[in-house]
């Protein structure tokens, strides 16, 4: 795999007065384009068929919630898994290192959809063969689709983020570690106080991009019957025989989601002290 660059923290741009920030939006060609976009939006609203919208709105809300919960849970669990994956690849004993590198290579080298279907159909069929599992308290959960979707998304995020963490652990300047050693810190304390926090700090700027990528991976779970946002819209399309209207709404929702996430993550990034 080509190495991933660890982007150095971006310094927040100095805040401009409102008028200076609005000026680029008010250029004549942009006004014309905004007008055209508005006209297109009006045409879409008035000319196309939207009578289904109120009926399906609650379901779309439920789907949106499923998408967001899947995104948040898989990002958190995946990140927790990525930390050891990255650390072990840099400093672990050889067998563990090979295992972690192999895991990252395999997950990053095969399509997510294939992994999802392997885990859902494969594991699902396997579990069903064991009476012990069928009888256990876990079975009501394992019969549903979302645990498999969550597991696959988590593993995928862990593999991609683990690769980034590998670069981040390897990229912590040696001088900082040597300084910590020179203070007489034991190895574990060096790891806990210097190496680990510095590596996480270095990896943070790429996290926003990875989270957006993960958001874009979530609709795949619709193929294993998890009713996320995409699945609800697919359902609308099948019920109403409309091709474009639900698709346009779906794109609009994803655009808003990506935009909001980007803004929130950038704000969070600005709150992290950059150390410069």
């Amino acid at each position, binding site marked *: 795999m080509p190495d991933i660059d660890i982007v150095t923290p971006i310094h927040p741009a100095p805040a401009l007065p409102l008028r200076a920030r609005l000026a680029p939006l008010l250029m004549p*060609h942009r006004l014309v384009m905004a007008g055209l976009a508005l006209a297109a939006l009006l045409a879409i609203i008035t000319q196309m068929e939207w009578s289904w919208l109120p009926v399906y709105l609650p379901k779309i809300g439920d789907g949106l919630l499923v998408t967001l919960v899947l995104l948040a849970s898989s990002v958190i669990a995946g990140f927790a898994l990525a930390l050891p994956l990255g650390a072990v690849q840099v400093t672990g004993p050889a067998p563990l290192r090979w295992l972690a590198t192999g895991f990252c290579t*395999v997950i990053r080298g095969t*399509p997510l959809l294939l992994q999802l279907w*392997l885990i859902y159909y494969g594991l699902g*069929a396997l579990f069903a063969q064991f009476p012990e599992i069928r009888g256990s308290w876990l079975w009501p959960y394992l019969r549903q689709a979302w645990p498999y979707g969550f597991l696959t998304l988590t593993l995928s995020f862990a593999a991609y983020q683990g690769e980034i963490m590998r670069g981040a652990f390897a990229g912590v300047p040696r001088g900082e570690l040597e300084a910590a050693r020179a203070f007489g810190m034991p190895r574990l304390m060096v790891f806990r106080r210097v190496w680990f926090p510095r590596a996480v700090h270095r990896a943070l700027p790429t996290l926003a991009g990875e989270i957006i990528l993960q958001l874009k991976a979530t*609709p795949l779970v619709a193929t294993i019957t998890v009713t996320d946002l995409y699945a609800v819209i697919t359902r609308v399309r099948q019920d109403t025989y409309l091709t474009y209207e639900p698709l346009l709404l779906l794109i609009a929702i994803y655009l808003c989601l990506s935009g909001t996430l980007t803004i929130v993550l950038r704000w969070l990034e600005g709150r992290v002290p950059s150390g410069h």
Partner: protein
Amino acid sequence: MIDAIDFSLLALTSPGWGGALLAGFLRSVELAAGGYLLGIVIGLIGATAKLYGGRVLRDIAEIYTLLIRAVPELVLMLLFYYVGTDLLNQLMAAFGREGIDIDGLSAGILVIGLVQGGYATEVFRGAIRAVPPGQIEAAQALGMSPFRVLRRVTLPAMAPHALPGMANLWMIATKDTALLAVIGFSELTLVTKQAAAATREYFLFFFAAGLLYLALTLISNLGLRWLERRARRGLPAAA
């Protein structure tokens, strides 16, 4: 409890599914390669528009890349597929011909290429900006036409900067072909699912397909490394 895995199911001839799997794999490679090439063309156009285009062109390119990067590939593919086939059919109707079925390969290549183009635009834009402006100005000062400057100076000089990003994009292209299975293209992932469902040997077939994808990734990785070394001849080692 668990039966021994029957590897004869992977035989190349019927009743084995090996032949079907390999055919699906070839289809995937074709789709990825075609989409990747189309993506390069779109990316070059997009990057040129972003860097040298007028204000309107620049904004249009900006909206295109924003859309591609913010919306899931699966949704984009659905949209491009329906819009593309619809537009073509209307075009054919306008010329008084009957609606035709676009063959799957070109539709799939178009869909993947449009998605790849958005990312390639960004890769090329960054790479072109990494070329020292003096080199381009020198070419202009020699009286070369803009197109010749692009062909003789800008493109060769930016290649080493673009290659790492483009290598990543090739990996994404090979994996994005799997998404076409959701729209119903019979490429490797869909064929695998059909084989697995018919024989109920899920692990066998999904692992076999995984190995094929992995082999493609690892082999192309070797090739791309070699290409990158070649393109970086004479440049200082990467930091």
